[in-house]
């Protein structure tokens, strides 16, 4: 009877230790979501790209290439774990393909208004993870 409080106390202390790293990681993950996550895309055409890039604050100046992933947060995050495999020195590749739209900057000026061309694809993606959270999308990897 007198033993039971102790395990509870232990769990509480462990909880305190675990929280700070995830909080620090969330900034990188939040940025990843802002730049690359769109679960319910509308249109996936040039106009989609033009409005998304603007909405997600990637147009000052115009970011030349940017991919939006149309999957759930859960599945994307899982690439850092069971649903992904190591790729190169720092990255992970998804075990299954994802629906994505890659927006490429077309047009002259690197300043707004930014014109974009959309490219829809269904392919494996490569990301970088930190402490189990996606923090970077590798735009240079395009699966064959």
């Amino acid at each position, binding site marked *: 009877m007198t033993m039971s409080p102790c395990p509870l106390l232990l769990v509480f202390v462990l909880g305190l230790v675990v929280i700070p790293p995830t909080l*620090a990681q969330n900034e990188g993950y939040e940025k990843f979501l802002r730049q690359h996550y769109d679960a319910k895309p509308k249109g996936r055409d040039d106009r989609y790209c033009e409005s998304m890039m603007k909405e997600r604050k*990637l147009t000052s100046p115009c*970011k030349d290439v940017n991919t939006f992933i149309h999957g759930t947060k859960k599945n994307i995050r899982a690439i850092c774990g069971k649903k992904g495999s190591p790729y190169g020195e720092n990255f992970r590749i998804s075990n299954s393909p994802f629906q994505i739209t890659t927006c490429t900057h077309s047009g002259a000026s690197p300043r707004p208004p930014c014109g974009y061309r959309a490219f829809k694809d269904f392919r494996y993606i490569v990301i970088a993870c930190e402490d189990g959270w996606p923090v970077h999308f590798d735009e240079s990897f395009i699966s064959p």
Partner: protein
Amino acid sequence: MDLDIQCEEMNPSRWAELLSTMKSCSTIRLDDCNLSSSNCKDLSSIIHTNPSLKELKLNNNELGDAGIEYLCKGLLTPSCSLQKLWLQNCNLTSASCETLRSVLSAQPSLTELHVGDNKLGTTGVKVLCQGLMNPNCKLQKLQLEYCELTADIVEALNAALSNNTLGDTAVKQLCRGLVEASCDLELLHLENCGITSDSCRDISAVLSSKPSLLDLAVGDNKIGDTGLALLCQGLLHPNCKIQKLWLWDCDLTSASCKDLSRVFSTKETLLEVSLIDNNLRDSGMEMLCQALKDPKAHLQELWVRECGLTAACCKAVSSVLSVNKHLQVLHIGENKLGNAGVEILCEGLLHPNCNIHSLWLGNCDITAACCATLANVMVTKQNLTELDLSYNTLEDEGVMKLCEAVRNPNCKMQQLILYDIFWGPEVDDELKALEEARPDVKIIS
């Protein structure tokens, strides 16, 4: 006094508060504020009672045709001296065009009207054009992007026609009309209009007959080297005072560079040229560089992003930088210059004659090994204020070297662009520290 608001929900008390400030504003911007036709009633009386109002921006509000009707009541009062009006994406249809036509015919103060991204349709725009033809109309800029126009438009327009499927026939007719009309056309934007070299003789005729034309954009049309040669005839004409020339993604090759070189070295009015996404290659670039060394070349901005260039042309570019004092912006990203090429470029950049303040080297195959040289340029070249190194594998080592340069008070950078570069948490921490150490330097990733 200016009112500049974007993306703000207007509750009645906030709206009332703003209305009282609007009475004395000279420019008002209320983009994306969820305004509707009822707000237009209030805005109409503001326009009516504020004779100092010069600019009004109401983009991305569901004003509808009803809203425009209300607005125009104010716009038609004799005391109204509005110069610029933005109504992009306001859910307007051709019904608004009759109202707008009456404004164009009665308000000589209005010089700019932006009605892009509304379903005006061909009929609506034809009605607008009637307003343009009215002798009272002094409109200089009419923006009609994404208005669902078709090739039926034939009247002379001073308009932005980009991103409408006009085709060669319509554009040729447009150009012939423009040459005959007495309008002082300043701007001709025909990007992505489905034109080919077939239209270029007629566009050339506009160039040689309108000394008022300062800005020509034919990007995203497959005009090719043949088309470019025809355009250059007009560009080289003594009547042509062109300043801005956008020829991106026009299917040009190095063969175009001979004619372009002649334009660069003779047209002193030319300030800004975009040749993005044309396969100019090193040989083409070398020809352009030769021209840029001519004292008559006054070009200030050159964009040769994604032009199939390699390290081989960097010597020529570098020698331009060491003699040309006019060039201020160079966009040479998306070319496989590599560390070797960029090192050569940096030699030219460091020359005291070089006045480049904005340099774009994104996706140029630069690695950490080049960062020491780039850092040196950043702390030595006081007039370099903008540098883009996005999408290069600089790694932690390279980025930290750049950060070190930013810390140096001699570094006068205003914007360092580092999109799509992977780095670790150590760099994240350093970037955060830099936000406080050098808040004047914006580092964008």
